[in-house]
């Protein structure tokens, strides 16, 4: 549904997005993961028609946004929950959008109920909203036109844990009904819990993409045995890279291969599983290590401006 193809965007000498390609399919939540300043927002802004691409394309359903009539009815966009007039009430913000799209005002009440903003809150000015309330308002704004595609930039920012859980349920339900969701985050944990597919971006380039299962498999297998030292040697001699991890080892191989190596060496296994969360986290940190500000103190300081 969403297709980003060989997208490149430069700002002067700085390449914010460098030959990025990925897709987000209908019926799935696609997580767009990367550290701050990696190019997530720039990519989404090109999708939203707010930034021009230098090369490549970013389309929804095969169209650029400006080619879609009344685009709010087809694509729901939340890029920055704080980009609302501070002096308007939440209700007024939604009313303006509903009127633009030609929707009845009753739709505003439905959306307010959906995102759990009550009557009194909806009549407060956005200036007095917490970041979490602004996110809810932004999600209501994006869903207002019953779009088939949602593009959400860091939608979980500012939400409390209950709010994040609520949003996860909302977006899962939306995808299960056939909608396509592209959401960005700089937090692996957040994306991992909700996304079916992931595209990981670092310093403007896609460094990994695929289904969650594929990325988890790539993260290796955790194994703990009666004699880890001997197992490590056995795996190494079989050409498998092994790194110590917690109480056991992480082997860069599938579980079956690790099991066979253990059997051949006659070592009893205690634990054998995909290295899972921690493995994916290692992968994420590894993939983005050289793009992290913390790791590279010499990184250009203006990078964040393009986040």
């Amino acid at each position, binding site marked *: 549904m969403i297709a980003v193809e060989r997208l490149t965007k430069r700002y002067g000498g700085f390449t914010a997005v460098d030959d990025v390609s990925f897709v987000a399919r209908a019926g799935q939540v696609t997580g767009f993961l990367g550290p701050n300043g990696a190019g997530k927002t720039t990519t989404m802004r090109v999708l939203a028609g707010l930034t021009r691409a230098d090369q490549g394309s970013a389309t929804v359903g095969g169209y650029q946004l400006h080619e879609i009539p009344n685009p709010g009815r087809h694509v729901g966009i939340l890029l920055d929950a704080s980009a609302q007039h501070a002096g308007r009430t939440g209700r007024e913000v939604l009313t303006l959008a509903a009127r*633009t799209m030609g929707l009845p005002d009753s739709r505003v009440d439905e959306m307010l109920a*959906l995102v759990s903003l009550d009557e009194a809150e909806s009549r407060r000015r956005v200036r007095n909203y917490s970041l979490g309330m602004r996110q809810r308002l932004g999600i209501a704004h994006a869903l207002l036109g019953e779009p088939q595609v949602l593009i959400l930039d860091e939608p979980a920012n500012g939400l409390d844990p209950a709010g994040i859980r*609520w949003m996860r349920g909302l977006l899962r339900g939306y995808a299960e009904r056939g909608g396509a969701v592209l959401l960005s985050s700089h937090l692996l944990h957040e994306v991992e819990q909700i996304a079916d597919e992931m595209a990981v971006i670092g310093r403007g380039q896609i460094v990994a993409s695929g289904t969650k299962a594929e990325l988890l498999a790539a993260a290796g297998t955790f194994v703990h045995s009666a004699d880890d030292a001997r197992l490590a040697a056995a795996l190494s001699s079989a050409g498998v890279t092994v790194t110590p991890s917690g109480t056991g080892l992480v082997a860069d191989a599938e579980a079956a291969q690790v099991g066979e190596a253990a059997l051949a060496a006659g070592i009893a296994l205690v634990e054998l599983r995909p290295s899972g969360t921690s493995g994916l986290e290692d992968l994420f940190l590894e993939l983005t290590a050289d793009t992290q500000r913390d790791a590279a103190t010499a990184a250009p300081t203006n990078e964040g401006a393009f986040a």
Partner: protein
Amino acid sequence: MTTPTLAPPVATGGFDISGTAPVPLGRLARVELRKLVDTRSGRWLLIIQALLIVVASAIVVIVAAVNDESMRLMDFTGLAGAVMGILLPVMGIMAITSEWSQRTNMATFTLEPRRSRVVAAKLIASVAAAIVSVVLAIAVGYLATGAAAALGVDVNWNADLEMLAAFTLVQVLGLLTGFALGTLILNTPGAIVCFFAYFTLVPVILAVAGELMGWFESVRPWIDFADAQLPLSDFGQDADELGFAAMHWGHFTVSGLIWFVLPLGAGIARMLRAEVK
């Protein structure tokens, strides 16, 4: 928290836009009109404008009654024009700049990515607001003339239709000049400062330059937009210098090109291309 009851998205696999009508310009214009009055700044601008006109008219009525002077209906229209000549351009400026400073243009331009249509809708909405203001100002003029008559002032009810049309045109032009500066500068204080510099400083500078350099006096009418509008805006002039017949349309066109068409063209070009942050 209750389970959300979200209406299912229409498409299952396909993405069909063939049945969707584009957003009509009239609908966009109505939304833009609503935006002019749904914030405190927008609403107060209109309220202050109305209050100033009413208060100024009341003072003039009282002064006229006390000094036993005669008043014309058109005097009150001119008075309202002086107030609106300042505030309508500010409204034109803010129609554009408030969206950029509050960053609501991100929402506006994603709901209608064809930005030229958004600009057109803003133009229609601003002009409509200006015309409503003019009509109300004329109505206040009638009320003030009636009040003056009731207080025993000698009044002239003669509504000069040509001058009312001229008055409307001048006010709309003032608003459009503000609108043009708004599109060019995209920043509320900057555009307002620039407008008042144009409004107060430029005529003085041009006059002084004309004094100092004799040859400049012949160039000045071609570049002084405010001066070119005088036959339409200054009701205190002699009849033969007043009205559409007294206009130097060449001066009006050339100076209007410099002060209105060029900034508007450059501003719109900028708005259509600008990266929305």
